[in-house]
């Protein structure tokens, strides 16, 4: 590929999405209206576990305005092949019936679905569906379920969905025996979730033997693939359209059971059907995340250098996890060594069912490795009696160490963790904070500082994630359209695509538009997930634009009687180097390509349209960051106030710094929420107790700090050197906050091993430490 002058990439270009979104002109799934459209409402289990004795839908069907009521017997038998591209066809996936069959396994488990004139009537009818339940003993807690005789799913003894491990346990134990310092703690993280501001939703319409769906999704093509497999319907009979999607963060990566129901029932109703999940459904039924614990062990030599680390990890996956959760758990073990020089490691992971909502993907699904490691390093530093920053400096990898194979055979490359760390420490002015902290302590105020560093495998090239396609059409007027699978849920992929394409074609950005999210128009692509979009669309645009660039240059050179190598493209104009007066606009070139074919050079095809497919150049692209948080803790009330927050990261060159910083900030604040506020909680009987926004507490503008950024650029092994940055903020933030609180309370002898740190938990920790 020829190097292309970057005029737009790297700068804070205004977003092309904004004018419509700022004025209420976006098109979210709930904005879609179809002729005669009906509305769905699910009847959900009020019990954590029960046998379904009978379902009587007659009263519901009698209600004026009700079109249909479906139960498991109506929909489930139609399922052909329910598998996801991320997992593949051959992995023995966990159960996932569209509607509950015979038994309900969590509060919110869909039992029936009502189709009615509008959502109001559908809810009225849902209240009239009579379901007779026989309660069964439920496992509200995955730790109780783990190893129990009573089974949540047949075929899963001890309620274990799967186990994996590294097999180095003996070696690590031996290393611990001779180590100068061994630190071991069990660290528990509460459940919290993605909670996009737009809930899930889908409109399905079966007409003329074709299924059209308007979806709130991160991956239109995967929704199409799932529907195709589920229904046994050819992919070219299915169209999925996603225009604007109101946040996803992993929750909208894959269709869940409700969406499967909609796909299945589309053929049985006379009109389009809309399902918009309400917020309570979202908080009880759209999936949980985090919720795991692990016993972590770290052995150090007398100089506080790491000799070995180990994590024995157990995660809750609820009743119906999506996707197959066992593989993701392995990443938690494999990444536990993090950005440190660790000669030896062991890990094990156990994935356990419970009678709670299923685990779904959430921004950095293996985040627990960073939570456990970074909390442990601070605990270790206090036990050893070394400054936590110094402990990290002694052990952290730098650019000179790359490539570096971690003890779990993950080969890191294209990273400079210690340089990123040092930048963060410099930005926060660590020494002067320590001084302020001393002064504050002498006045009885508790200030603290915490850091968190991680490495993140972005842009993983597994399965369908390994390639990305683009089609670029320069229309006869010279207007440019870039077609990409997309999947933007706020991550600005339209703007990024337009920036990249304008640069690649030498076009004025105002001449470039992009069309994304519609499977009927766009090339196959895996959507957003795994922090892959920046790199992959950059590659797709680059390989595709290159075809057109050569053609544009050929036409211009021929018409301007210059050598192709002397043609320059900029501002939608091709000109002859050194003779700027000799030039053609993109519009003139497009006119030749489509309308004045006689002026084309010989051997140059007509038209200016090309498709290309980029294949990832590396199995993963490593990104990394260090978060530093300072806080004040009010011991009387347990209130934590964040004072400063620094994120220093290396996501390679930035396509658009605004977008990068926006991703970091959004992820970071989700992580702050997870550390201090958010808890998707259940009571002892398995009833969800945070099913509204009155109880599920996300940070507001009043709770969040200003976030300061440091950027280190180590180009990655892919298009433009770009790395992923979508998930990192959510991974790095919780331990930085927790470590800051722990540091603040260290004079009181507090050790933090359970989350979240809401005010009551902080006061309890202090009380406990004071004895």
């Amino acid at each position, binding site marked *: 590929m020829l190097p292309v002058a970057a005029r737009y990439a790297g700068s804070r270009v205004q977003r092309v999405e904004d004018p419509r979104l700022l004025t*209420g002109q976006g098109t979210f799934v709930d904005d879609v209206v179809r002729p005669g459209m009906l509305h769905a409402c699910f009847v959900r289990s009020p019990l954590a576990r029960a046998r379904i004795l009978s379902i009587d839908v007659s009263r519901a069907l009698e209600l004026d305005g009700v079109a249909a009521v479906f139960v498991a017997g109506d929909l489930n038998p139609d399922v052909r092949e329910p598998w996801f591209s991320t997992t593949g066809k051959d992995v023995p996936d966990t159960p996932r019936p569209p509607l509950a069959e015979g038994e309900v396994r969590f509060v919110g488990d869909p039992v029936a679905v009502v189709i009615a004139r509008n959502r109001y009537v559908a809810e009225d009818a849902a209240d009239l569906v009579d379901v007779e339940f026989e309660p069964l003993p439920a496992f509200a807690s995955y730790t109780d379920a783990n190893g129990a005789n009573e089974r949540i799913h047949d075929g899963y003894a001890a309620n274990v969905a799967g186990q994996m491990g590294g097999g180095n346990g003996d070696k690590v134990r031996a290393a611990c025996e001779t180590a100068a310092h061994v630190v071991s703690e069990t660290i528990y993280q509460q459940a919290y979730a993605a909670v996009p*501001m737009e809930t899930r939703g889908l409109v399905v319409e079966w007409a003329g033997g074709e299924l059209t769906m308007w979806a709130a999704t991160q991956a239109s093509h995967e929704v199409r693939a799932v529907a195709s497999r589920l229904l046994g319907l050819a992919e070219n009979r299915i169209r999925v359209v996603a225009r604007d999607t109101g946040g996803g963060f992993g929750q909208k990566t894959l269709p869940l059971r409700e969406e499967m129901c909609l796909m299945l029932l589309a053929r049985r109703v006379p009109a389009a059907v809309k399902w918009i999940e309400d917020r309570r459904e979202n908080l009880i039924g759209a999936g949980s995340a985090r919720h795991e614990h692990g016993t972590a062990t770290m052995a150090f030599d007398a100089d506080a250098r790491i000799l070995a680390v180990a994590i024995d990890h157990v995660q809750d996956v609820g009743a119906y996890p999506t996707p197959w959760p066992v593989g993701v758990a392995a990443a938690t073990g494999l990444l536990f060594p993090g950005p440190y020089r660790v000669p030896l490691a062991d890990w094990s992971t156990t994935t356990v069912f419970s009678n709670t909502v299923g685990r779904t993907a959430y921004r950095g699904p293996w985040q627990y490795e960073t939570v456990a490691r970074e909390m442990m390093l601070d605990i270790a530093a206090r036990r050893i009696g070394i400054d936590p920053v110094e402990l990290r400096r002694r052990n952290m990898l730098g650019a000179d160490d790359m490539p570096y194979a971690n003890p779990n055979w993950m080969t890191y490359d294209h990273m400079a963790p210690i340089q990123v760390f040092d930048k963060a420490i410099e930005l926060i002015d660590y020494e002067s904070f320590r001084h302020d902290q001393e002064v504050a302590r002498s006045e009885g105020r508790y200030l603290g500082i915490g850091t968190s560093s991680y490495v993140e495998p972005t842009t993983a090239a597994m399965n369908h994630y390994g390639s990305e396609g683009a089609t670029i059409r320069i229309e006869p007027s010279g207007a440019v359209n870039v077609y990409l699978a997309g999947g933007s849920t706020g991550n600005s992929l339209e703007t990024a695509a337009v920036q990249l394409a304008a640069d690649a074609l030498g076009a004025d950005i105002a001449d470039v538009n992009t069309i994304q999210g519609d499977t009927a128009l766009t090339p196959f692509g895996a959507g957003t997930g795994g922090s892959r979009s920046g790199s992959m669309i950059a590659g797709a645009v680059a390989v595709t634009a290159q075809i057109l660039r050569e053609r544009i240059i050929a036409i211009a050179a021929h018409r301007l009687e210059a050598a192709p190598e002397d043609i320059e493209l900029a501002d939608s104009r091709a000109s002859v180097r050194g003779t700027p007066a000799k030039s053609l606009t993109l519009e003139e070139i497009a006119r030749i390509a489509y309308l004045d074919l006689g002026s084309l050079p010989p051997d140059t095809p007509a038209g200016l349209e090309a498709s290309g497919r980029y294949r990832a150049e590396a199995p993963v692209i490593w990104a990394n960051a260090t978060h530093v948080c300072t806080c004040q803790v009010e011991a009387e009330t347990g209130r934590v106030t964040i004072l400063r927050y620094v994120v220093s990261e290396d996501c390679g060159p930035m396509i658009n710094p605004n977008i990068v*910083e926006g991703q970091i900030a959004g992820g970071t604040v989700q992580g702050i929420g997870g550390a201090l506020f958010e808890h998707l909680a259940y009571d002892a009987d398995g009833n969800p107790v945070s099913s509204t*926004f009155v109880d599920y507490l996300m940070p507001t503008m009043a709770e969040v700090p200003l976030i300061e950024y440091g950027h280190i650029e180590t180009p990655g092994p892919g298009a433009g050197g770009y790395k992923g940055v979508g998930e990192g903020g959510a991974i790095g933030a919780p331990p930085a906050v927790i470590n800051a609180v722990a540091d603040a309370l260290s004079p009181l002898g507090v050790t933090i091993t359970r989350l979240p740190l809401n005010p009551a938990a902080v006061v309890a920790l202090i009380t406990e430490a004071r004895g």
Partner: protein
Amino acid sequence: MAEMEIEMKVNGRSRRAVVEPRLTLADFLREECHLTGTHLGCEHGVCGACTVLLDGDAVRSCLMFAVQADGAQVTTVEGLGSPDALSPIQEAFRDHHGLQCGFCTPGFIVSVTAFLRDHPAPMVEEIRSALSGNLCRCTGYQGILAAVQAAVSDPAPTTG
């Protein structure tokens, strides 16, 4: 349960409809008026995505019934600017990356419009406190706060 006839001015235009009393103002705006910029993020009055101006006051349109707004003047996000003519506050949000997915954005735009009208020169803590009734899950509020501060320091041309 009888349906009722109501009339209100929405974005300056008279709207008449026969509605069920239980129809929320938010659903009335979205479904009867086809003004889908008013978003429903929670339907229980916490997230603020459905904020509209009712006789000039910012209110949650999910927490009132359309029949209660009979005779009122309602302004939705669509009434504050258009893609070709953004309001100064909308411009500031664009300039400062004050939105990502855009779902919560209409509620913020309406809330900020009312807040800055009543508090033309707020301190940063007042901004934070005033906007704590609007939830955003994408931006971490960084760009939103910057946008509001910019809209304060860069006042719009004086209007009558």
